[in-house]
């Protein structure tokens, strides 16, 4: 048996070998973006971040709002509120932060689907962690 174990004054282990499995390798702010719907089109424009050491199968990306709406949601205003981005893997060490929504909507009078998109992301903090072992 070998290793490192740190206990606090109450005898609770606060640091042990099990804690060396995750390492933050990147943190940055990604600016938000907002627009109205753009009709009959979709967009493919990820915000590209290159993180040395990033591997999709070994890393996780956590995205949080940098500011929050402090009030309750209202049905009339909610659609214009900005949301937390998601991400896609872009190959190699590149991560693409998705700050928009693409969707299809049904135009019932004309009985057809049409596409549309809008920017809809709040300012966010992107944190990239690398997982070791486990």
């Amino acid at each position: 048996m070998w290793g490192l174990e740190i206990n606090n004054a109450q005898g609770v282990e606060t640091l042990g070998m099990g804690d060396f499995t995750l390492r933050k390798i990147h943190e940055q702010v990604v600016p938000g973006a907002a627009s109205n719907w753009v009709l009959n089109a979709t967009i493919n424009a990820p915000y590209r971040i290159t993180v040395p050491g990033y591997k999709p199968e070994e890393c996780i990306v956590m995205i949080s709002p940098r500011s929050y709406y402090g009030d309750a949601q209202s049905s009339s205003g909610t659609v214009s509120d900005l949301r937390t981005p998601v991400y896609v893997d872009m190959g190699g060490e590149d991560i693409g932060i998705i700050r928009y929504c693409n969707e299809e909507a049904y135009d019932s009078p004309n009985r057809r689907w049409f596409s549309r998109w809008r920017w809809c992301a709040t300012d966010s903090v992107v944190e990239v962690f690398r997982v070791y072992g486990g």
Partner: protein
Amino acid sequence: MVVSNGRVVDRPAVGSISFSAPIPTDAPPRLFVRLASSRHESMEMYVVINGRAGAWTGFTIYAPAQGGRTLPQYVLDYVIARSSFRKPKRDWVFQLLDEKGNTVFCDEEILVRFSRFTKKWTMAREMSGNGYTYTTFYSGMIIEADDFIDVTFFNRGIVTQTTGRLDFTGVRIYNGSARVFQLQAQCGNETVRPLGIAEMNFCTPICKFPLDKFPPQ
């Protein structure tokens, strides 16, 4: 990350907690919740981390109730976790510093051990009888009774929940009296389908915390 814990009782479906001192990190502190009890068989909610980048002061959870005439009363256990930033109070400590000399670990503090993460989500749409469309995102995670879910990201949801004529977004942690982890968007009588869900990733941790080890704040 370092934790303290407490218990919030949510009587009119709004529950709020103030931190003992503002948290001066740029990224918001991470809020992990676990449903302790509920009068309803489901719980959806959304989260406000109060304050701003560099001075986070607390959090508020809003939770509506689905169905029935019983007032909601949700009880949540929570753990709030932040990056380590404090200089130790004692003279003799074990400390780790990063390359800039910032404290990243001090033996006075307890680390969070992330156990699982969401990444890929699936999506389904359903029409309700009263003209609403619900878009549900499924994490695919099996949530156990002692699992805490990170809901820090969920203020107004994620970008792919932005659908036309959107009414509300929420994160659902309880459904049919079972623990779940789903995201929901509800929109009025318009038929929409978000695109790009298969390529999309969104990571959130799910952790177990031995609560007796974490000091209440």
